[in-house]
């Protein structure tokens, strides 16, 4: 619009939204920013510290280790859940009551609250009463998530895969359903193999939902807290202590408000940065290559 008519009343219309966003995002975030640059000792005793907290957080060995664990965890679960989710979506029944039944069954894990998932798996893996822990012990396999870091990792990954793969599967399933039947017919007439159908028809048509799936799963897994906390408490040692648990220990356990505020901001920026880089890369790839989806 080139011919602007000055009308300040428009601001009135934006105002409610501004107030809402202020309370939901800007004010809380600014509070954190406020804490991150000061050392608050008491109601009337505070010192400006500049970037000191940020520097100490970035150089903290324990946090660096937790960050690496966090990145590895996110990458591992993405590497498992995305292909597995696509695979499940491909073999799900397409119509009839079977389709509804499978959909409901597959959605169940998504409906369970995080800490309940942690509790379920905590009990499941116990050597004395847990089905998996007891079963493995009876089979003569040594398995103890409170003593063996490897066991703890495997269990947490299994748990996350069980809890969240259904989300990926459902997104892919909806993507697959939107491909017109004629494409499959055409492929059969062309004598295309199953692999060719997947590679040249299904995968290109799934790109959009996969971008969403990867983004959601990355953000979720990068913020994971309740499940490992309930299952392993971050142990053994600090083998499964992820970023959010380190943050909670610092902020709630030790009341180190300044450092944890700085740390929160870094945490937030990392998630934002990774998501943004991923999204723009994919979108640019699509611009260079053909735009997918549609007829």
């Amino acid at each position, binding site marked *: 619009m080139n011919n602007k008519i000055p009308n300040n009343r428009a601001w009135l219309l934006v105002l409610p939204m501004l107030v809402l966003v202020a309370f939901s995002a800007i004010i809380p975030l600014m509070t954190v920013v406020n804490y991150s640059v000061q050392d608050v000792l008491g109601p009337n005793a505070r010192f400006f510290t500049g970037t000191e907290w940020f520097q100490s957080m970035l150089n903290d060995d324990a946090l660096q280790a937790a960050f690496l664990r966090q990145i590895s965890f996110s990458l591992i679960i993405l590497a498992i859940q995305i292909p597995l989710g696509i695979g499940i979506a491909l073999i799900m029944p397409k119509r009839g009551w079977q389709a509804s039944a499978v959909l409901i069954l597959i959605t169940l894990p998504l409906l369970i609250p995080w800490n309940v998932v942690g509790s379920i798996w905590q009990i499941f893996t116990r050597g004395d009463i847990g089905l998996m822990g007891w079963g493995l012990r009876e089979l003569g396999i040594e398995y103890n998530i409170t003593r063996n870091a490897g066991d703890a990792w495997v269990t947490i990954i299994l748990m996350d895969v069980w809890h969240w793969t259904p989300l990926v599967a459902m997104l892919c399933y909806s993507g697959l359903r939107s491909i*017109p039947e*004629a*494409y499959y*017919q*055409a492929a*059969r*007439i*062309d*004598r*295309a*193999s199953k692999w*060719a159908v997947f590679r*040249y*028809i299904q*995968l*290109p*048509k799934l790109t959009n939902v996969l971008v969403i799936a990867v983004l959601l799963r990355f953000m979720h897994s990068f913020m994971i807290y309740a499940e490992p906390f309930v299952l392993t408490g971050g142990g053994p040692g600090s083998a499964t202590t992820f970023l959010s648990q380190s943050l909670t220990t610092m902020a709630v356990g030790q009341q180190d408000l300044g450092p944890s505020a700085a740390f929160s901001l870094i945490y937030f920026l990392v998630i934002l940065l990774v998501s943004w880089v991923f999204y723009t890369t994919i979108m640019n790839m699509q611009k260079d*290559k*053909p*735009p*997918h*989806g*549609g*007829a």
Partner: protein
Amino acid sequence: MSLHLQNIDHIVNGVPHISGIDLALEPGSFNVLLGRTLAGKTTLMRLMAGLEPPTRGKIIIDGKDVTNVSVRKRNVSMVYQQFINYPSLTVYDNIASPLKLAKHPKSAIDKRVGEIAEMLHIEHLLNRYPQELSGGQQQRTAMGRALIKDADLILFDEPLVNLDYKLREELRDELRDLFQARNCIAVYATTEPNEALALGGNTAVLHEGKLLQYGPTEQVYREPNGRFSAEMFSEPPINIVPGRLTDTEITFDQSLHFPCDDKLKRLEPGDYDFGVRASHLTLQPQRADDLALDVHVDVAEISGSETFLHVHHERFPLVLHLSGIHQFSVNEPLKVYFPTHQLYAFDKQGHTVHIPARQGGAAHG
């Protein structure tokens, strides 16, 4: 190759989609399946392709029973109403895909793709992706994929429906030429009588899963074997007026008497449905024996450079097909001339009992 469908029935979930179709297609023939939506055109094509086996009946190709041979083992190609191409492949790779799957050498593929692309006028688009093309170009690419294979049977399932009017005519003409030199059987499904007439070849008229008539397109048009066939194969549909035939005259609606054509006198006296093509009704008398009817205008539909004029006589409605654009106001009184020598007659079972003699060079729509 020749294709013979023998007494095909196809029932899906208890609903008959195809009933008792028997149809033999000659090698090198161009065949049009004409019928309204749900007439069974697409189902019949799926059966021909082998995408699914018929519930009953046999499909014979070159004397061999292939009823249960899967589509992967038959040499078929198909073009759809939607523009179906591989979205992540260029036009070149899309057209080349059937040959690549058949593992042809690279140089041979290059040459074939070049020829096909030239034939379809898309040689300048080979490096583009389907999404970057117009609808017509996308459909040309899909046709290229179907044509490159040298299939024994090529099926076109209303391929031009989603294209604009001009493009449709252009592609239709080219399509006809593409098949002149080929030895494969082409089957083309359409809902439009005019498209069938423009394509020529043979036409099979389908209605509610049944084959009404099959023969050379012109002949099926001029000599429909029944009332349904005549109605399916005319746009606007042929006018049907119930009437009574006596020794000397025809009565429409107990009130409208006129002397009948000599040839009609050979029929048994009784009740018949009389048909007259919309294009045979006129606003000026053409012959001395034309019957003048007083009618009122319902609506005038303008389609391209033609006008479909809907009118009603006291007891029955009529449609006129006029060339050129004409304006009429609703309820305007008109005189319409009814050619009494050009009447089709159908008995009460719907079979054709009389076909008017051909007029030299008369325009048909």
